[in-house]
């Protein structure tokens, strides 16, 4: 079940990855192969198996509402590609 070039571009955009036309063609075939591979899961009979969102038999892993000190501001901003004062600086966000 091959992906269309448009679907490849859509996914690239969601992932914030820029692709050339050549790359679209290349990933179109590669991604289609991966999807086909996973398609084999459809063959498993799940008729009487309740759906599950988790593979571990755990639930209610929670913490009490106790605040703890945060990390130092300089550490927080250490990886900022751009910084202005004590803020992260990013490109203008257009609504």
């Amino acid at each position, binding site marked *: 079940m091959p992906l269309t070039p448009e679907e490849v571009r859509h996914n690239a955009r969601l992932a914030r990855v820029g692709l050339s036309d050549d790359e679209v063609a290349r990933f179109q075939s590669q991604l289609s192969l991966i999807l086909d591979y996973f398609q084999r899961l459809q063959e498993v009979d799940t008729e009487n198996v309740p759906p599950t969102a988790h593979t571990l038999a755990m639930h209610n*892993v929670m*913490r009490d509402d106790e605040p*703890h000190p945060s*990390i130092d501001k300089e550490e927080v901003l250490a990886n900022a590609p751009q910084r202005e004062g*004590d803020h992260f600086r990013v490109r203008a*966000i257009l609504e």
Partner: protein
Amino acid sequence: MTTTAVQYETIIGLEVHAQLLTRSKMFCPCAASYVDSSPNTHVCPTCLGMPGVLPVINKRAVEMTIMTGLALNSEVPERAKFDRKNYPYPDLMKGYQISEFDQPLCTGGWLEIELDGQRRRLGITRVHLEEDTAKLIHVKSPTGETYSLIDVNRSGVPLMEVVGEPDMHSPDEARAYLVKLRQILRYLDVCAGNMEEGNFRCDANVSLRPMGASELGSKVEVKNMNSFRSVYRALNHEVERQREILDNGGRIPQETRGWVDDQGVTVSQRSKEYANDYRYFPEPDLPPIVVDREWLEKIRAKMPELPGTKRARFLSEYGLSEYDVSLLIETPAKADYFEAAVALAPEAKRQKRAKAAANWINGELAGLLNAHNIVVSEAKITPKGLSQLIDLQEDGTISGKTAKDVFQEMFETGRDPEQIVEGAGLVQITASDEIAAAVERVLENNAKAADDYRGGKEEAIKFLVGQVMRETRGRANPEMVNQMLKGKLSDNP
């Protein structure tokens, strides 16, 4: 202006986002308060979205959400789970928001509003839990360069979303719904409920359809409303805007519009390049929540008395009017204040005391609080002080007029009413000779009014009583003055 015969039905649904009053964030132990904090100081690798971190659910936030659901008559299913809602925007540090998609903590429900004497139940679709985003500050530098700044403190603060059914047919109903919802959240002490500060936010879906039509019209989502007043204005504007387009034969495109408060209009927000593609999937880092019935009952047992129950109790227990009760139960703090004042009176006098206390709280106190822009919990006058003041008035120590002056001083200074009364010589004159002397003086100086009364003009007595009250600087008992005047005027023609 175009007018047509077509009548439209307005349909409004509201989505409310309420920040929960937890001490720590939703999935990490950073402090949840951020309003007075400097930027990026309540931040850790988890709320920064660093790779390899593990979120852990704040139990209190879950309980607050369940409590809200119970107060809104929702179902609380046995199982709930969190999901990732993916979208790329710089206020989301991880590139996704942890939210609840198909298994929220609470489903269904309703709340009851009262409008123009009519009660209506408005449906609730669901109540779920998610995390707030970072705060973006948009900057335009003097050189014209535009960019945005990010403060991550708000990121990860617990955010509860209450989705309402499209059940409302007017902006007035929408406002009543919001006021009621906020009142409930404040009673539960789960949200500060302040729209201006952004801890209680509201988006609205508005559509119109010809009266009697069963299909819904195109839905417009209205955002950016930062006060109750702006919600009301924005909805009125949006309804009129859509009506005008439909009357002129136009069509309403489905879109998102932002309310521009200072211009009083909604404007189209640039539609996104492509439709949202949130790609929800179960949050693999968070095991599901199982709300066993024992836990649910424990949460229910911890819930405070809600406005509806309190209202019914106040009506029957204190014999007050609907109007008085609706004002008293506006906030739990005000209701508690009232009850504390009434409880100080002996049991046999409680009903009478309740009426007096309600009058003071809904009258003088409300006026002064309003003028000083504070709430009841900040007032210097205590329930005990109020109770003592009413005692002084009831036992005849001070007159009603004096009581108001004393109340004013108590409000300003927090002093004890007895001290104020004694210190200022305000004790009511009940000694009849002192009043008699004042009555004599007034009758001498106002012979015309005295004659009018004797001539059958009963109204004149009011003027004379007023003059005696003036003579005694308000300290005389008006009833006593009245009787004494009448006595004098009849036996001394």
